[in-house]
């Protein structure tokens, strides 16, 4: 199917809204009205794969088919941009490395346990980046280090677990971290010592109760994920992050994202190259709500 001149079913406004609402309810992602054309183009391949001829049939499939849930995941997969790369937004990673990790080292010395969560990890580059940063500091040798990555797409999780990447994943690669990769015929693979620290799971961020499998974490990276969510879903996810973070734990959002209008539960921490959020360490000692 040619890219420039492709033809296929046209989505009607009602179909768009029905599909948009269904997807929003499923995973929190919200498509504004001006995304209709993009949604149409991206979902056409799903219609074609399922042998469906219009978007109403696809809506019915997502509502009634026994495999509707799996298809919803596929729809979300094609509708979202999953492309990421190692050391993305490195100014933030520098702040994490130079200022947050030393603090965490001090604060968690007694337990010698460090847990990080990359929420919406896509193909896994961020999870492995965090693992490389932790190892490279040398601060946590002998500690129990765990980095958890989740995504709603099983396809991207498959790629993450394979840990083998093409050139596009290395567009912002830093030379001193090259040693954490090994060359394979399929591409460059993350070194087993780094992979051993990383764990992946299939998790819908809206499913707050299931997020308990992540356990309590010291920092969460959720960058360029919440921008796709509507306000209500964003609040739900942020509540989950609050629950999962230990008191004093850090939340890293994308450079254009903030908690303004979404939550007052986190305090702002000024680092030398970035502003990050932190679950307050102090307080009444019992939960008073996150908003």
């Amino acid at each position, binding site marked *: *199917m*040619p*890219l*420039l*001149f492709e033809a296929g079913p046209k989505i009607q*406004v*009602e179909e768009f*809204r*029905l599909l948009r609402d269904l997807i929003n309810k499923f995973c929190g992602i919200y498509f504004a009205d001006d995304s209709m*054309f*993009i949604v149409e*183009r*991206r979902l056409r*391949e799903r219609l074609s*794969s399922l*042998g469906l001829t219009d978007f109403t049939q696809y809506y*019915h499939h997502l*509502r*009634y*088919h*026994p*495999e509707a849930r799996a298809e919803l995941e596929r729809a979300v997969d094609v509708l979202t*941009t999953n*492309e990421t790369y190692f050391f993305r937004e490195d100014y933030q990673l520098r702040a994490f490395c130079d200022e947050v990790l030393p603090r965490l080292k001090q604060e968690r010395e007694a337990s010698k346990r460090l847990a990080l969560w990359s929420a919406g990890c896509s193909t896994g580059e961020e999870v492995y980046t965090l693992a490389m940063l932790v190892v490279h500091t040398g601060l946590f040798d002998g500690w129990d280090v765990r980095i958890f990555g989740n995504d709603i797409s099983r396809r991207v999780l498959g790629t993450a677990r394979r840990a083998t990447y*093409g*050139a*596009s994943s290395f*567009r912002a690669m830093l030379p001193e971290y090259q040693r954490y990769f090994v060359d394979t015929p*399929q*591409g460059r693979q993350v070194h087993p010592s780094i992979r051993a620290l990383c764990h992946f799971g299939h998790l819908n961020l809206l499913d707050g109760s299931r997020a308990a499998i992540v356990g309590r974490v010291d920092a969460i990276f959720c960058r360029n994920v919440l921008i796709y969510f509507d306000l209500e879903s964003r609040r739900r996810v942020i509540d989950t992050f609050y629950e999962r973070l230990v008191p004093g734990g850090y939340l890293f959002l994308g450079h254009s994202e903030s908690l303004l209008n979404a939550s*007052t*539960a986190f*305090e702002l921490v000024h680092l030398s190259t970035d502003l990050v959020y932190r679950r*307050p360490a*102090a*307080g*009444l000692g019992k939960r*008073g*709500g996150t*908003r």
Partner: protein
Amino acid sequence: MMPAELDQALRDPDAEVRRRAVIELARSATADVTTPVVTALGDEDWRVRKEAVRVAVTLAERAGLVPALVAAICQGNNVGLRNSALEALGELGRLSTEPLLEALDSARPEARKFILAALGDTRDPRAVPALVASTRGDDANEATAAIDALARIGGSDAEAALRECLKSSGPFQRMGAIDALVRLGTVVPWDELSPLLADRLLRRVALPLLGRTGRPEAATALVDALAEPSAHVVAVAALALAKIQESSPACRDVIAQRMRATSPHERARLVERLEDGDLPTRQAVVDLLLLARDSRALEGLAELAAQNAFPPGAVDALRAWGDEVVESLISVHLGLHGSARGAALEMAADMAAAAPNPSRAVVESVRAALRTALDDPETSIQLAAARSMSLWAEGEDAKRLVALTQRGELEVAAACGEALSLLMVRHPEAVARAVDGVALEGAAGVALAPVVARVGGPKALEALQTALSAGDPETRKAAVEALASVGDRAAAELIEFALADESFGVQSVAARALGRFRDSQGRPVGTDALLLALASDSPAVQAAAARALGEAGDGRAVEPLRELVRAGDPGVAVAAMEALRALHDPTLADVLVEALGHADDEVVKQSLRAIRETDHPRTEARLSVGLEHAAWHVRVVAARLLGEIGGEAARAALEARLEVEKDDLVSAAIREALDADALVRGDA
């Protein structure tokens, strides 16, 4: 928390303690909440203030907080308190309007602008007359605040007042009015805008308004603005140019001509916006650079293509560029990453294919690039090449494509299969040789089954029959689909067997295929098997069988289908309803009334459609029930169907609903229906 504890917590030095105390405040039995809420609204910590706003909004009506909030915006000591109170009053909307209007007359001059701002935040049209009056006052600050407030309320009275302000002698008022009209999306005629353009500051603010005029003079002014030093202005001008091009081909010609004459410096400034612009800006910039035939547009275009976000005019601009653009795209793709690289390659292939007479060099260059890309280790590049091969493959590529189906991912294999199917038209022998003896398993099986079916003959039937026994259900599904396209009796029997497959997915596909299947006399086959499938344990199979029976037109299906409408799973009920409509069941009416009350929206929609097709004296009344349904999309369907029927009863129902309808799509559907009704009656 007891009142005393709460009071103490609200004064605690720790901001987190105070924030939680504010949350408690909303739940507490404290008699006087005004003082603590106002104190919290003026807290030094933003998190406490933000929480206090939420609490103030929750308690305002019950605790009579609005006067205290109005007083808070009029005080001049605590800016945090004022801003929080403004936010709360805005969220309270109409509840704030009257107290604010009352306070406006008696307020100190320095407080009046905050009251005007708060009136704007209420978005209450009742505030418009007072705001319009304030735009005419002597105090520029107050007039500007009123203009800004009008922009937040909108409406025809506000817009008229704002256009009047364009003639004002005050530069701040004019600038504020332009900005307000931009925000409201107002179309201001060129004649009203052109006098403002002599002032450089006003011109910069007015760029979006120029983009709405559809006038070539405005297009020229917008291209001139691309030379402005501010990156923001360049981005705004680019967006306005995108807008004006959409509305006027004459403007597009003017812009194309002017863009080809722009300086390298101006284009470089546009290229910078590809780095930092949002999606609409990048689309607009790419479009302009394409018109300038600047090859840097192609990288940006490839990035946008990878996100399925082509600028609207991109294809025309590429076409106008000619053969040269193909080589440029091929060259550009080598420097890109991921799906953008694939998109550049695919665009090169598409453009060369669309060219009326591409040169031999271009053709060879495209084929060479595609063949190399088929062997690329990155899936996105393989996919792009495989998709383009549907236009460019030659006989010698058949084996290469078949080989890729066997090592590529599902999506790549599918694209190869499609390319091979199309290649069959030009080089059937080459394709037949390439697929001969290939095992139909996994991704290759899914991709090649339809190709094998097109090759035809006893060997093909044998291969597809073997594929029906493949371990992978996806291959078996593909084999069933392929057999349906073979179309002979033996194929039909094989598909009937597939109705007993252990996978419900394969059974569903088989049912669908049988619904379409006709023997050499055009008669449906397999209806007995489909009737049995209606009793399947799987709703998906039941639904597929129901639809297939509807297509087959077998009257024996009516009774079991009616039962499924009543008792089936919602998805099955929808399918059964569709089938009954296709079968023109004359006794459907009684089932439909019952189905109108079904808990599932889609069942209700189907029943409305079926009611429309019945010849019942109470059709309008029954359809009107749908206008009151809780789901907006059910109301849309009901409105359309009533519009189709027309007549006084339908019109009355539509008009009554329009009075109270809140959903924009439903309102639009009702208006269209009323127009259609008018046409039916010859009123138009």
